């Protein structure tokens, strides 16, 4: 088994350092928000993790189309990696959002468009994983997975739009935005963009690791098949 390539090892270290730097920046450099206080600091990582989730979502949809065109199983492993990372990061984003929402909106959960869409997207991912679990043939698993990713990639934006309309027709009880960035301090903005950058690097690192894991899993499957024959 080949060891990790040099670039990946470098990324590991870089990710850890950057994450530490971002955390320090959030707590020391970014000013404390006047109204919400300390809890607002969760916002930086919340936006960054949601961004990574979004990135994974888009990558997965694009890769699904590439897979159906090329039929190269390599793309299936990449798509699965993107979905899994997106699943985890959206979960983290929802979790962090909840922590922020409790003091800010007075509730852990609200049927806000972004929040609801994120929750439904998680359901799409879980369904995707269950679908894969029910299929043994790797080629068919890849095909069905790709088709389902495309369906999810198209329906989730529509879900967002429909919940949005739902919300604009009916008056909203609790403030929708919260993250309206109109009047944010420059230092806050810098921290936010730095966090987004850091988490993008972490995304690349994890993505790479997950793809390697997928390749090994495939290798093991092949070996098992050879043994059984």
């Amino acid at each position, binding site marked *: 088994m080949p060891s990790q390539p040099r670039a990946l090892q470098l990324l590991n270290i870089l990710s850890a350092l950057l994450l530490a730097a971002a955390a320090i920046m959030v707590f020391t450099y970014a000013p404390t928000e006047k109204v919400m206080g300390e809890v607002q600091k969760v916002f930086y990582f919340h936006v960054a993790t949601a961004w990574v989730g979004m990135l994974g979502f888009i990558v997965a949809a694009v890769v699904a189309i590439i897979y*159906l065109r090329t039929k190269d199983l390599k793309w299936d492993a990449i798509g699965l990696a993107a979905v899994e990372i997106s699943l985890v990061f959206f979960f983290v984003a929802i979790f962090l959002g909840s922590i922020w929402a409790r003091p800010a909106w007075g509730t852990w959960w609200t049927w806000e468009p972004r929040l609801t869409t994120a929750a*439904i997207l998680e*359901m*799409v991912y*879980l*369904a995707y994983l*269950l*679908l894969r*679990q*029910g*299929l*043994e043939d790797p080629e*068919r698993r890849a*095909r*069905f997975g*790709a*088709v*389902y990713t*495309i*369906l*999810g990639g*198209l*329906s989730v934006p*529509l*879900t967002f*739009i*429909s*919940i949005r*309309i*739902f919300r604009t*027709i009916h008056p909203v009880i609790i403030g929708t935005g919260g993250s309206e960035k109109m009047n944010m301090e420059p230092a806050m903005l810098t921290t936010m963009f730095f966090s987004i950058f850091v988490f993008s690097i972490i995304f690349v690192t994890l993505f790479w690791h997950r793809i390697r894991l997928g390749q090994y899993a495939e290798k093991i499957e092949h070996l098992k098949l050879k043994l059984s024959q």
Partner: protein
Amino acid sequence: MNPTPDSPRPSSYLRATLAVAWKDLAAELRSRELLSAMLVFSTLVILIFYFALELDVKARNGITAGALWVTFAFAGTLGLNRSMAIEKDRGCLDGLLLAPVDRSAIYFGKALSNLAFMLIVEIIVLPLYSVMYNINLFNPGLLAVTLLGSIGYTAVGTLLATMSVQTRTRDVLLPILLFPVVIPVLVAAVKASSGYLTGADINEITPWINILIVYNIIFIAVAFMVFDFVVEE
């Protein structure tokens, strides 16, 4: 219908689609196992709604649209599962795939018959609900929304049912796969239906109708494009 054996492709495509749909309808006319199951199930759901939500006159108006669509959605998965399971179990799907027609014609045929089953159920459930809850559901707008919603639901449902019957978990998997991607249809259909039932302004209903139409166009087109990948061996 066709003047010559080597007639242009569109009409043979249409004929193949109608043949698949007709096959399902004819089989159903003889056995009636699918429709009767869907109907009994729908009636049970309506009854359970009464006990679960204590639908008094006041609550009824607000909840009717939601209750109806939950009923349709659940009964719909029942029908979709059954309709694809029949094909898979008796090896009919392989036979269909061997036919020298474009495979998407098979998809449209199955989707058409599934839509027909769903509409039949709805045509029976709507008056039944009207009688049981003493509420007038005969509203052209509501019927149009029901048709639009059912088209979107079966368009995606047929595609996903074709996938789920080929998995190990089968019947269990279909609702799990279907519901998260069909949410725009359910949201829009419920909102538009309740808009018509409460006599809301047409400007409030139009966005929902638009969503339904957009969803239908997108997903019928996508299903048309990807169905080949779902039945490929």
